């Protein structure tokens, strides 16, 4: 296949343009450059001449080639020039006719906004989107609470099998990762604390730092974040996939309420399991702290436990644990809600899953901050 070319030869009255080569999509770029650069030179002075296009030597012309040729021809006609075609091969004639019949004269420009206008539009859009999302989340909260009340007044409606299955999935399978991360955080807290407190000769207070830090904040916060990433995303993906497959619609038609069957077992399961996971995380965190303290302070494990009893009160423990069911409720609520928001495309499952994790972690941390303020005002 040879490159497309256009050659000009002129006499007094006509300018003949010889087209040759393959006018195909892949090769077209060269002839476009040729024509746009020749516009100023070759054609000067022959503006009023009749242009004859000789297409005899065209090997192949595809739709893109035909489109470009027609546009070029019309561009000349648009400035008052006269044109005509000469010795057009049959296959070229056919493609020219097809393209001429189907082309859009004025191709609508891509509707894209730029600059400040785009920024303002995007800001406005996302603002209203956020408002609708909050409204929808509140409406969903209402639905869940009503279904919850219904199940509590009539415990026969509780679905035990999915509940237990969810608890296994959320709880037992998360033990290794939660344990490891809590242990390491205990180690890090103890190490950093010992380094700073050494300057005051108050190294022994490292134990206070670890105990209070892990029990009140770190244990629950890290567990909640891990669970949001692990289980909140899983809720969204599971429900979202079911939504895409129309399983949720099928459920409704056979008289099953998806809130009863899918959402409540997940929310209840997480609310029951997260306090237990937090308790486990507390222990692992304190053990991590113990390992590091024993190394740096040269204490025995029993001495560590002895100091620990003075350092932390039962209140510290409860402050941490009491947050667990609240965070669990939020993580599960957002996970399920985002899952049910999935539209009927696989792409939106991914989008909603990301959003679910981000929202859940955001709400968990905001709520944790609010609760910290509340507890300190209450003097706990």
């Amino acid at each position, binding site marked *: 296949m040879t490159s497309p070319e256009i050659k000009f030869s002129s006499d007094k009255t006509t300018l003949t343009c010889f087209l040759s080569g393959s006018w195909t999509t892949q090769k077209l770029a060269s002839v476009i450059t040729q024509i746009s650069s020749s516009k100023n030179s070759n054609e000067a002075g022959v503006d009023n001449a009749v242009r004859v296009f000789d297409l005899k030597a065209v090997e192949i012309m*595809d739709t893109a080639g035909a489109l470009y040729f027609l546009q070029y021809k019309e561009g000349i006609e648009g400035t008052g020039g006269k044109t005509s075609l000469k010795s057009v091969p049959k296959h070229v004639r056919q493609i020219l006719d097809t393209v001429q019949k189907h082309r859009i004269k004025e191709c609508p420009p*891509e*509707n894209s906004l730029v600059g400040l206008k785009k920024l303002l539009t995007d800001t406005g859009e996302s603002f209203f989107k956020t408002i609708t999302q909050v409204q929808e989340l509140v409406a969903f909260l209402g639905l869940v609470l009503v279904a919850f009340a219904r199940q509590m007044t009539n415990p026969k409606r509780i679905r035990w099998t999915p509940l237990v299955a969810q608890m296994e999935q959320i709880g037992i399978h998360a033990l290794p990762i939660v344990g490891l991360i809590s242990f390491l955080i205990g180690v890090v807290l103890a190490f950093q604390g010992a380094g700073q407190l050494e300057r005051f000769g108050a190294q022994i207070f490292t134990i206070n730092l670890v105990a209070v830090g892990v029990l009140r904040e770190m244990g629950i916060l890290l567990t909640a974040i891990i669970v949001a990433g692990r289980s909140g995303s899983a809720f969204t993906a599971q429900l979202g996939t079911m939504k895409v497959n129309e399983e949720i619609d099928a459920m409704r038609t056979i008289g099953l309420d998806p809130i009863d069957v899918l959402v409540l077992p997940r929310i209840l399961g997480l609310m029951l399991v997260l306090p237990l996971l937090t308790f486990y995380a507390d222990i692992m965190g304190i053990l991590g702290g113990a390992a590091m303290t024993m190394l740096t302070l040269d204490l025995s494990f029993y001495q560590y436990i002895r100091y620990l009893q003075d350092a932390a009160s039962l209140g510290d423990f409860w402050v941490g644990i009491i947050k667990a069911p609240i965070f669990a409720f939020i993580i599960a609520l957002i996970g399920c809600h985002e899952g049910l928001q999935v539209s009927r495309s696989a792409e939106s499952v991914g989008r909603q899953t990301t959003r679910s994790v981000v929202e859940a972690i955001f709400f968990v941390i905001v709520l944790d901050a609010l609760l910290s303020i509340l507890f300190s005002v209450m003097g706990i």
Partner: protein
Amino acid sequence: MPTAIKSKDFVISLKGIRNQFGDHILHDHLDLDIRKGEVLGVVGGSGTGKSVLMRTIIGLNQKAAGSIKILKQDVDQVSQAELRALRQRMGVLFQDGALFSSLTVSQNIEAVINEHTKLPKQFVREIAALKIVLAGLPIEAGDKYPSELSGGMRKRAGIARALALDPDILFLDEPTAGLDPIGAAQFDALIAKLQDTLGLTVVMITHDLDSLHAICNRIGVLLDKKIKVGTISELSKEPDPWIKEYFGGPRGRAATRSHA
């Protein structure tokens, strides 16, 4: 009913193709010649490997044995660059369009062209608009996302993308499945029109007996790990029970009557 094209100008030649998955042999010693400018319908029972055969020709499935010649070039003997060039001369419509969901219809087409050429942006957009109209879609559909289109429109958009680089050979995987009879007939007409005006060679997997009658020059039946090719009237005389049942069953007879 279209008649068989007699030419010996083969755009695709398969010789001794074998496809197998583990111990399961799907095709064995399969030969097939596809003539330039014809519409070849491929039929066969479930599990006979219609899609696998198509994927083998396109190069998405590695054959176990045999040779494939596309436009007279053996795909095993050409360089990577030549293979890429050959691929560009084949367009494929997957079952549900397989459009990139994060791009609009127009961008789906533009992406293909931009990947392989250095044409001005506005001109590429105009080519895309032309393809959209050629595929029988309203021009407004160009700015829509695939999820906003109906099944039939998605297939048309898929055709438009398959035509992006003006291929010589167009592969269609069940183009009329899931369309209503009116939509299916319009789609048949579209394929026939494109085949005629753009001089395409079309290979379509289909179970739509009406499509077979309306637009296919020849039919290939996948049977006993091989493919048997002929016109409908030739195949109707075959003694094989599956072919007899296929064309002579109630649906086959109805389709024959309405296209007689």
